């Protein structure tokens, strides 16, 4: 009896999912942003947005498993490379939003566009016994022995971009730097949150290569941490937004992308402490023009991904 009811309820849900005035949105973090965007968009257009939020890996695994029968209409990932790959496989619909005019050229593409941007930084616990670092290389000093964490490049696309970027900027010296960090007993505990938490409690003093916006937010919430961007340069991690070719709802999907890139949408992005994609919308923190950005040849890096990860593992993690 109970189960009959469930099935009936499920069928009811099925019906509502098929309606034209709903949109399915798969997105990587930040937490709360997707819900806020969905609610504001619904208030403006009456179109319901169903949100699935996970890590980039979870979003991609789900897209992959559903590939025979795709469910999502719009996707935001935290890895620019994932959008390039999906485009190369012909999964994306061509669309350039009129609102993308204010987005810098290198962050727009015929099939995808940046939603917001984060940068990679050092995050230092101001209460720690270790001195305030200013450069990546500072962390190889004795004062930081056993006090450094780093997100795993295999699990964090941004941390991977940092390794690739440092290599592009410094050549083999980048690997010497990483070897120096490893010799200083740096730990690589997992994705971003896993690297940050030991620093929050003080078990470690600095994160090498943290995604900055999460830490800006936590510092604003009273945590005694400081986000430090080395003057020598860092990499940025734009978050691509894309419409799937398979969407049954292209008009609603386009309207949603337009909305995210509108001034109102970009202000919501700014509230998460990311840099808004649009150059004319103010962020809460230093913007792209305040950073020394290391240019990375995306194609070359993507082709060498396995090599770079393998070398990182051999140099730092010893596996």
């Amino acid at each position, binding site marked *: 009896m109970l189960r009959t009811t469930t099935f009936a309820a499920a069928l009811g849900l099925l019906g509502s999912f098929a309606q034209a005035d709903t949109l399915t949105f798969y997105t990587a973090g930040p*937490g709360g942003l997707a819900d806020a965007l969905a609610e504001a968009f619904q208030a403006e257009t009456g179109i319901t947005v169903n949100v699935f939020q996970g890590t980039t890996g979870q979003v991609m695994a789900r897209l992959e498993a559903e590939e*025979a*029968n795709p469910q999502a209409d719009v996707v935001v990932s935290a890895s620019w490379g994932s959008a390039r790959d999906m485009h190369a496989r012909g999964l994306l619909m061509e669309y350039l939003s009129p609102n993308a005019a204010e987005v810098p050229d290198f962050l727009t593409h015929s099939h995808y566009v940046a939603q917001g941007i984060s940068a990679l930084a050092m995050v230092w616990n101001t209460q720690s016994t270790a001195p305030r670092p200013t450069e990546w290389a500072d962390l190889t000093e004795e004062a930081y022995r056993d006090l450094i964490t780093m997100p795993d490049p295999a*699990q964090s696309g941004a941390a991977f971009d940092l390794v690739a970027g440092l290599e592009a900027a410094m050549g083999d010296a980048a690997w010497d730097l990483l070897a120096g960090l490893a010799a200083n007993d740096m730990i690589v*505990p*997992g994705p971003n949150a896993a690297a940050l938490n030991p620093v*929050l*409690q003080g*078990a470690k003093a600095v994160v090498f290569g943290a995604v900055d916006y999460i830490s800006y937010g936590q510092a604003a919430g*009273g945590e005694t941490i400081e986000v430090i961007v080395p003057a020598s340069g860092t990499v940025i991690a734009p978050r691509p937004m894309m419409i799937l070719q398979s969407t049954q709802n292209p008009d609603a999907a386009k309207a949603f992308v337009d909305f995210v890139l509108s001034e109102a949408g970009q202000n919501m992005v700014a509230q998460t402490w990311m840099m808004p994609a649009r150059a004319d919308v103010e962020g809460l923190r230093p913007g792209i023009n305040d950073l020394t950005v290391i240019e990375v040849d995306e194609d070359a890096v993507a082709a060498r991904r396995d090599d770079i990860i393998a070398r990182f593992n051999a140099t730092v993690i010893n596996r």
Partner: protein
Amino acid sequence: MLRAQSILTTLAAAALLVLVGLPVLFILLQAVFPDFARGSLVGAFSKLAILTENDRLLMQARNTLMLAFSVMLGCLLFGLPIGVLRGLFHVPGARIWDVVFLIPFLIPPFIAAIAWMMTLQPRGYLFQLLGFDMGRFLFSFAGVAFVMTLNLFPLVYFAVSRALEMVGGRFASAARVHGARPVQAFFLITLPLSIPAIAASLLIVFAMSIEEFGTPAALAARTGFDVLVTGIYTRLSDWPIDLSGAALGSVILMAMVLAAFTLQNWIATRRSYVSQTGKPADMDKASLGPWRWPVLGLFLLVALISVGVPLAAIAVTSITGTISGGLTWSNLDTRHYMPLFQSGSRAAQALITSGWLAVLTAFATAAIGGLVAYIVVRGTGRGRAVMDGLSVLPNAIPAIVLAVGVILAWNSPFLPLTLYGTSAILLIAYIGILLPYPIRYAVARLRQISGSLDDAARVAGAGQMQALRHITLPLMAPSLIAAMMLVFAIASRELVASIMLAPAGLRTVGTFVFAQFEQGSVQTGMAMSMIAITITSGILLAVNLWLARQGSSAFSG
């Protein structure tokens, strides 16, 4: 009469095939055909090369087995003594202890790992309170095994205490009459008769510890201690995604669990463990006398380590304003609870969703599990062993892979109508994942119940269904109810399958908490865990007290 049994068999077989067989089949297909998810069958077996050319896989397999055996040993160490005491003696507050030892199942493993980390790591809570830390121990092989043991030892506790209650004092008394000393009677009679139950619980411990992801991911990554399941997750969650590689890794895990299952089955069936023959039994447990206090002390110690410490760490974290602020009065702040209590908040929706999912899963698994167990033990058909083996597989498959199997199976474009994309798909996955519990518990129980009880009923004129309803089912009920409570506890906080399968827009307690850890505030995640644990343990306590008033208990014969 014969028809009734064949209908039941068909029903149970169909349920198992749809809920377990189908996802497993699609995982196997994915392992063989790398592009299966894209609807293509090209390049068959091209992925198998990673099995042979990869030393790391072998090392991971060895580490996995080492960890599983250590956890089994640890579970015996923690669960056996208190289980024996609970089963044979009047332990003060027995019903309370039963609920207390369910709490480890209510705490999601990755939260327990984070709680231990925040307690033991340098400058963690232990350091802040007592001035020393145990980081070196925690981030080691022993530490990982320790934390996983604390998550799983209640399985042994419940299995042992229930089995001993059933074997009861009668056989031991017979031994005593024949001149055996109490200790002799225990080791020669009582303990051996509860072997099926102990072996069954150890099988689940084994399967769960090779499948468990949260603890190794949080702790073992720091030590460079790689296990198979972390490798599988890496393939599924790191760009680029490798569905086939993950499926292959899961096939190795399935092989391990099937081997363990065969061994356990051999132990459990090579002789008779029947102890419930229908003869009136003296169910009175022995009194502990002056030993009461030391025994109570032991229960308290185990509870303190396994429940007290992680729960305290979760509670404390949820009411600190900032993590860097540490344990000071000025840092005491309940603001992280605020977003949970707003009316119509997503937290409330998540609690309701997880609540009804857990209840439905508990009833469905008990119904299907009881049926399968009955057929496996009492039936005569040839497919019995296959059914039994099939039912244990979900415990071997990492939940994320089973979830992928469910997507592949249920999101096929050829299906005219699918439950994928609705909350019903979560129910299907939960039932598949959690079916092993009721089946293992009920099979072990049935092996202790003599078939002659059924025969007696049949001789007295009852039909087979009547005998099942009035004799076997009531005797099975305690272990089914215990399994239902376990299933309810685990389903109420399930994370991994939920992340993969929850339709867009639907949140469960697990996904809500995880999102808070990943992107929001650790404290809000801990606060939500606290609320969920409180509600769930309250429900379990209420059910247990209600059962007690009905004259039986979920955890007693």
